[in-house]
Structures are given as structure tokens and as C-alpha cells.
């Protein structure tokens, strides 16, 4: 064969076509750049619009009075706009949720990463993912019906809608985040540390508690911060169980007092406020405060995790984030603070039996510790870790069982195919199911091209630098933005400013913005998993960038992208806050005939049934079950696609 003589259209190109293909490559790159930059644009827009609408209230009452005023009474004759009780409420709920969630999560994470057999793990991990998949309005519904009732009866108080209820519920919702991120952190501690410790003759528990967990501490901290972010940004669930009185609990540790968070205030009042009023502006002021808090929280978690990842890539020789000496003094400091707080709480607030019990346990531990052999301590510790895992599982089972048992009787052909009657007490939920499907399909149709484009730009077209860092930060910020903030932005920008009105379209766009970071992330992941050698192979044959991407890189990445898309759909289907003010009506007999009409949606329908319609018990549960099945259905498909193709790739 004479390769030198072989000339064909594929190998030689006239200057004209070369110029053309260069232009094509450039324009493709430009398009991708804009999709990637979109995230930054959106964040900027959100901030601008919230500031624009929130600014007047600051001018009106002054920043200190707004932030530190202790009365929130926007509808009083002389309205008062002090948001301190709301900030304190958010803070208290978060602290309570973490007190509940952190020990359980870390126990469960230790069990998963160090004690569980591979088979148990295979069951437990999807269970935790399932917990993450339950929509927040379903949590709120469960909290409202079961949890508050339980608290009301056990403490013999008139209503169970309290700080305690909110903290427990939000703690449950933060569990999956904290568990999965800490589990990841513990599992990725280098194996050598474990072997080194065991080879010295440390017990498994000593190895876990003195080497593995300390080595994973930054990851665990990031997990907790992410959990805090989740709690602070949650709207629907907390709104349904916290009692929503805008007061600072008196005394401050009274966990049976109702309280109100920043997010709940938005959820409750945004629907009733007249546009452009002082009150309206105050709500946007709250949104800005909320956004700033969550952004700080999320960016710090992201920073820690990124630092860890880089540390791992550069090998263990890198110095840790904080030196071991500071770490120790920090730990001691935290310990002292914890003990002092506990003592104050016990002396001042707790029922006497709890105080006695805690003191007894602490005393036994303190004096008995030296008499226990380390094998006893190990047995005890493993018992506690196992207990934490069992509690997490039990919570999942209780929630699912309650909703399935009560929801099944409501399910019927009629329920699934008929419109609601009598404010949803009778009839079915067909328009809500259809509406939710319309919303999520529209949302993914918008988010998928933008997200995939952005990911392709980030992975394939750039090196890490200023621009990618800016874009990544934009994506991270978007990811950490609470869903209610998207709701308000959608309302202010799409519904009012662009004059689209409350409509299917406004809801789809708002949801699309919310899921965009998920799509970008998962696509990025799957693109990064494609070996570099494939790209080099293609480029070495003279293929252009875009040919390489479209024919070599993208096809094997499709399962990963699809997984991300389905996960996003599931997430969007369960969200209430973003569509509450942008897209939904409570009851409608008909399906929308255009993009500009409002729709019914399952989560919102459930929310209204649960909070505003007495006597709809069966249909409430039925709606909750359908929503749950829908969302879990999406998640299962995603997990199936993921594992199926993972196995295939591995061979």
C-alpha cells in the first residue's frame, strides 16, 4: 500500500473549507461558553433582582432596625419589620436539627464505611438515598400529622407545632446529606493508616476513633456544613411543623415553643402580599439575608471539600488544613463549650429525670472508664454505632409505612384519572399529576441543553483558570441557593418583570434554574470519567475538537448524563417552593392548554390539602403516596441506569 499517494476529500481540504471548519469550531466553542456562563448570569440576576426589590425596606427602616428589630408585625396598624426573631428562629431550628442529626449520621456513616459487610452495605446505601429522595412537602406532611401529634401527646401541650418538631424533622431531612458525605470522607482515608494502626495492635474501634475519624474530620465537617445548608434553606417542611409564631422562645431554650424561620416567613406571606408594598420589599430583604447566609455556608463546605480533593490528588504529603496542634486545642475547646452548654441546659431547662439520667450516664462513664477493658469499650461503641444505624432505618420505615398504609386505600383508577372535587376532599388528582409532569419535562428540556453545554465547556474546552473558577463558583452558588429563593426570583423576574404571569412556563423556567447545577455536575463527572487516551486517539487522527467530543467523548458519557437528568427530574417533581408563586393553582378541572396558563401540581396540592383543607384525610395520604411513588420512581430509574451502566463499563 502506498499511503503517500492516497489523496481524498477526507484528508486534503482546500483553504476555504479549512477556514469554514475553523469558524464552525469557534462558533461551537462560543455557544458552549455562553451556556457555561449562564450560571454566573443567573446568580448575578438573582442577586440584582432581590437587591432591587429588597432595597426600599432598608432605606425605609434602616439596616440595623431591619436586622436587629425584635418585632415582626408587617400587617399591624403600625407595621414593624424587625427580622431578629426570624433569624433567631432559623438559628435555633438549625442547632436543634444538628444536635439530633449529627450523632446519628456520624454513627451511621461509621457503620456503613467500617463495619457493614458488603451485602449489608448494598441494602443500606439505597435506603439512605431513599431518605434523600422523599420530597420535603411529604416530610412536612408526615411531621404535621404524625410527629407534632406525638410531641403534643408526650409532652401534654396544646399543640405539637414547635421548635422541637421542626428540629427533629429537619434533622431527619439532613441525615442523608451528612451520612453520605461523611461516609465518603471516612472511606477515602488511605488504607495504609488503617493497616498501620491495626498492625500496632489497636482495636478496630481505637483505629476508627483515633485514626480514621480524625483523618476524615475535614470531610465530616463539610458534611455537617452541607447538612446545615440543607436545614437553613428548607421551607415547606419547617413551615408545616414549626408553629410559625414570630417570637424568640422564652426562655431561649424552651424547645416546646413555636418559632418561625426566615424561609417559612417567605412561604407564608409571599402569596398574600401586595406587590410593591413595604411588606413586599421586606420579604425580599429577608430573601437577601437568607441567600447571604446559605451562600456563606455552602461556599465554605465546597471550599473544604475541594481542598480535600486536591490534597488527595497530590498525595498524603500535603500539610493538613489545620495543624494537628490547633486541631487538638479546638477539639478541647469545643468539648468544654459542649459540656458547659449541656450543664446549663440540664440545670435550667430539662425535666429532672433527663438531667438525672444524663448525669448518671456521664458519671458512670467517667468513673467506670478505667475499669472497662478496651474490648468492652469497643463492644459498647459498636453497639451505639449500630443503634444509630437502626434508628436511621427505623425512621425511614416509619415514614414509608405511615404513608403507604394510609395512602393505599385512596388509590383507585378514579383517583388517578379524575379532577378533584369539593376542594380536593373528593375526586382525583389527575390534573396535579399531569401538571407536575408538564413542569418537570419543561424544566429538564430547558436545563439539559444548558447544563450539558456548560459541562462540555468546563471539561473539554478550557483549562482550569480564572474563567472556570468563576463559572464553578456560579454553579456552586446556584447549587446552594434555597429553593424558595428561586421561587421569589421567578416571581419577581419572570412573572412580574417579564410579565409572563403565573404560568406553566414561569414554573418550568424556575425549576430549570434550580436543577441546572445538578445537571452540570453529573455531566461533568461522566465526562471526566472518559479516559483521556480516547480523546488523544481521536485528535491524533486529525479529528477536530467538536468531532472528538460528539463522536468519541459524548456517546459513552450518555448514561451518566441521563442519570443526572432523571435525578434532576425527581428533585424537581417534589419541589413546592419554587412553583408556589410562579406556576400553580390549587384546584382546576382542566389541563392547561397553553404554556401561559397556570397548572396544578402534586406537591402544592398536598401542601394545601394538609394545611388548609380539613377533612381530606384519605386524599391527603393518597396524594402523598402518589407523589412519593413518582419521585422514588424517578430516583430508582436513575440508580438503575447508573449501576447497570457502571457494571457494563467495568465489564
Amino acid at each position, binding site marked *: 500500500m502506498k499511503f503517500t499517494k492516497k489523496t481524498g476529500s477526507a484528508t486534503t481540504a482546500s483553504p476555504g473549507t479549512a477556514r469554514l471548519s475553523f469558524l464552525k469550531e469557534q462558533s461551537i466553542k462560543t455557544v458552549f461558553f455562553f451556556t457555561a456562563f449562564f450560571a454566573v448570569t443567573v446568580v448575578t440576576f438573582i442577586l440584582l433582582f432581590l437587591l432591587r426589590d429588597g432595597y426600599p425596606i432598608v432605606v425605609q427602616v434602616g439596616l440595623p432596625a431591619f436586622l436587629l428589630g425584635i418585632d415582626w408585625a408587617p400587617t399591624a396598624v403600625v407595621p414593624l419589620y424587625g427580622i431578629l426573631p426570624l433569624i433567631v428562629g432559623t438559628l435555633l431550628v438549625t442547632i436543634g436539627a444538628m444536635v439530633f442529626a449529627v450523632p446519628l449520621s456520624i454513627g451511621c456513616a461509621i457503620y456503613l464505611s467500617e463495619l457493614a459487610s458488603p451485602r449489608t452495605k448494598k441494602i443500606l446505601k439505597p435506603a439512605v438515598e431513599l431518605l434523600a429522595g422523599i420530597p420535603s412537602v411529604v416530610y412536612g406532611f408526615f411531621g404535621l400529622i404524625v410527629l407534632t401529634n406525638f410531641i403534643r401527646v408526650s409532652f401534654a401541650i396544646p399543640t405539637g407545632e414547635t421548635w422541637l418538631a421542626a428540629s427533629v424533622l429537619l434533622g431527619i431531612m439532613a441525615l442523608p446529606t451528612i451520612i453520605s458525605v461523611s461516609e465518603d470522607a471516612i472511606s477515602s482515608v488511605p488504607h495504609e493508616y488503617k493497616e*498501620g494502626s491495626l498492625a500496632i495492635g489497636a482495636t478496630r474501634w*481505637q483505629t476508627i476513633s483515633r485514626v480514621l475519624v480524625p483523618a476524615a474530620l475535614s470531610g465530616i465537617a463539610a458534611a455537617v456544613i452541607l447538612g446545615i445548608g440543607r436545614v437553613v434553606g428548607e421551607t415547606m417542611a419547617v413551615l408545616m411543623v414549626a408553629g410559625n409564631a414570630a417570637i424568640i422562645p422564652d426562655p431561649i431554650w424552651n424547645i416546646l415553643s413555636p418559632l418561625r424561620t426566615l424561609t417559612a416567613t417567605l412561604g407564608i406571606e409571599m402569596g398574600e402580599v401586595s406587590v410593591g408594598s413595604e411588606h413586599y420589599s421586606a420579604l425580599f430583604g429577608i430573601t437577601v439575608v437568607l441567600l447571604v447566609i446559605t451562600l456563606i455556608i455552602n461556599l465554605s463546605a465546597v471550599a473544604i471539600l475541594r481542598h480535600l480533593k486536591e490534597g488527595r490528588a497530590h498525595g498524603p504529603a500535603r500539610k493538613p488544613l489545620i495543624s494537628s496542634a490547633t486541631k487538638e486545642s479546638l477539639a478541647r475547646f469545643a468539648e468544654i463549650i459542649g459540656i458547659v452548654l449541656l450543664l446549663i441546659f440540664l440545670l435550667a431547662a430539662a425535666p429532672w429525670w433527663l438531667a438525672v439520667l444524663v448525669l448518671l450516664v456521664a458519671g458512670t462513664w467517667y468513673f467506670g472508664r478505667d475499669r472497662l477493658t478496651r474490648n468492652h469499650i469497643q463492644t459498647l461503641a459498636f453497639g451505639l454505632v449500630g443503634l444509630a444505624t437502626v434508628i436511621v432505618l427505623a425512621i425511614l420505615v416509619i415514614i414509608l409505612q405511615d404513608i403507604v398504609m394510609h395512602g393505599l386505600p385512596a388509590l383507585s383508577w378514579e383517583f388517578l384519572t379524575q379532577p378533584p372535587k369539593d376542594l380536593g376532599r373528593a375526586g382525583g388528582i389527575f390534573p396535579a399529576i399531569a401538571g407536575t409532569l408538564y413542569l418537570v419535562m419543561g424544566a429538564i428540556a430547558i436545563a439539559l441543553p444548558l447544563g450539558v453545554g456548560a459541562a462540555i465547556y468546563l471539561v473539554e474546552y478550557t483549562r482550569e483558570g480564572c474563567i472556570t473558577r468563576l463559572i464553578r463558583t456560579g454553579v456552586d452558588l446556584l447549587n446552594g441557593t434555597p429553593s424558595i429563593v428561586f421561587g421569589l426570583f421567578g416571581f419577581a423576574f419572570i412573572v412580574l418583570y417579564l410579565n409572563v404571569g403565573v404560568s406553566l412556563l414561569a414554573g418550568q423556567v424556575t425549576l430549570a434554574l434550580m436543577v441546572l447545577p445538578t445537571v452540570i455536575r453529573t455531566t461533568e463527572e461522566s465526562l471526566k470519567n472518559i479516559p483521556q487516551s480516547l480523546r488523544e486517539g481521536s485528535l491524533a487522527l486529525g479529528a477536530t475538537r467538536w468531532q472528538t467530543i460528539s463522536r468519541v467523548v459524548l456517546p459513552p458519557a450518555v448514561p451518566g448524563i441521563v442519570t443526572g437528568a432523571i435525578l434532576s427530574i425527581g428533585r424537581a417533581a417534589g419541589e413546592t417552593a419554587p412553583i408556589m408563586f410562579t406556576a400553580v393553582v390549587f384546584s382546576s378541572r382542566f389541563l392547561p392548554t397553553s404554556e401561559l396558563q397556570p397548572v396544578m401540581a402534586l406537591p402544592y396540592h398536598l401542601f394545601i390539602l394538609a394545611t388548609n383543607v380539613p377533612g381530606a384525610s384519605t386524599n391527603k395520604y393518597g396524594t402523598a403516596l402518589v407523589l412519593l411513588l413518582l419521585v422514588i420512581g424517578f430516583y430508582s430509574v436513575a440508580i438503575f441506569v447508573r449501576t447497570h451502566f457502571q457494571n457494563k463499563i467495568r465489564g
Partner: protein
Amino acid sequence: MSENCIISTKNLNLWYHEKHALESVSMRIPKKKVTALIGPSGCGKSTLLRCFNRLNDLIDHVKITGEITLDSEDIQGPGTDVVTLRKKIGMVFQKPNPFPKSIYENVAYGPRVHGVRDKAELDKIVEQSLRHAAIWDEVKERLNDSALGLSGGQQQRLCIARTLAVEPEVILMDEPCSALDPIATAKIENLIERLKEDYTVIIVTHNMQQAARVSDYTGFMYLGKLIECGKTGQIFEHPKEELTENYITGRFG
């Protein structure tokens, strides 16, 4: 080998899944001597070493038959307390693996987990172990710095100090010098020389000269079998087996 032996194996077999990694290995490790294990890559040296302190327990799907005794007591059965066993049999790994803690905490870790709480006593153990591992002078000013900031050779000696701090009877070393330069290697070889006054050392090495220099006894392994085992001088000068001779003289494969 008629001297009193500390570890001995009889018909030891080990499978990873289907892979037969050790085939009826019978071996006696003499007390307070240095025994070297040599053999081509993948022949099962590390596997054998990790049988002695039961570190293979960490790996799923491992099946072991046969007998291993320490001071004539069985350590293979399910009744063995692996924690106590590992206190008696320390290990230094191929890649230095200090914990992400301070230098002091790394050495104090072992005594601490074995119940030493007294600060003065810990200080003493730390200093002694670091001295014994010939690294004290290099780190005494910076005991509270992170161990990850040390050089590879220093890290390895720190790991040896960490092992010495729990006063084991046997020290297993799996290619302890393979990541080190000649100077650091020489330091560790000197160290081994001194260690055998108090400890039994079993060392895996790919370096023939090293085996000849530091060891009293040598075992040659090939494809999961212990081909030959005896006094180092005899193995290197008059090997009984042709395989051994080929390997040692480099006429292999």
C-alpha cells in the same frame, strides 16, 4: 535450624478467591535473628508476612489452611486475640505510612491505645523509641510538627519508632527501603543490625545485597512455595536448589 524458633508455620495454604497464593509453606523463624524473605515479584512474600500478624483478615474472601504458631501457640484459629497478637508482632510497611498527626502523637499512639496515660511515661517512651530508631536528633526540635512534613526516609524511621514504642517481640518489614535513597537505606540497615539484639526481624527485600548484608537466615520463595530456607551464607554460596541459584545469580525467567 535447630535454634529455638519463635514463629513457625506448617503446611500453610492461602487462597485469594481462586488464586492459590501460598502453597504448603512450612517455615521456622529463629528468635532474635534477622530472617530475609526473597523471591520474584508476586511470589507471596507480602502475603506470608501478613499471615504472621493476621493482617490478611482485612481482605475479603481470603481462605487459609494450615498452622501458624507464635511461641508454640496457635495464632491462626478463630480463638486468637488478634489485637494482642499484633501488639507482639509489629509491622513496618513498604510505603511509610505515618498517621496525619504530629510526630509525637505518631509514636505515642501505640502506647496510648495500649493504655498508657501518664504524660511523663509517654514522653519517655517517645524519646526512647525515636532514639532507638535513630531519628531523635533530627526531630527532637519539632515533635509537634506534622509527621507528613518529614522526608520519606525520616517517615520510615518514624514508622519504625512507632512500632518499637509498643515493644513487640517480632518486627515484620515489607520492603522497608524500596522507597528510599541509598543513604536512608544504609541508616535503616544499620538500625536493623542493632534491632536484632532485642527483636526478631523478618524482612522482605528485592535487594540481594541487602538480604546478604543484614540477614542471618534467608528464605527463597517462588510461585507461592517456599523453595529453600537456611543460613544466609549457605543460601547465597551453596544453594541446594537450582531455582534458588538461578534467582540469586540473576539467571532467571
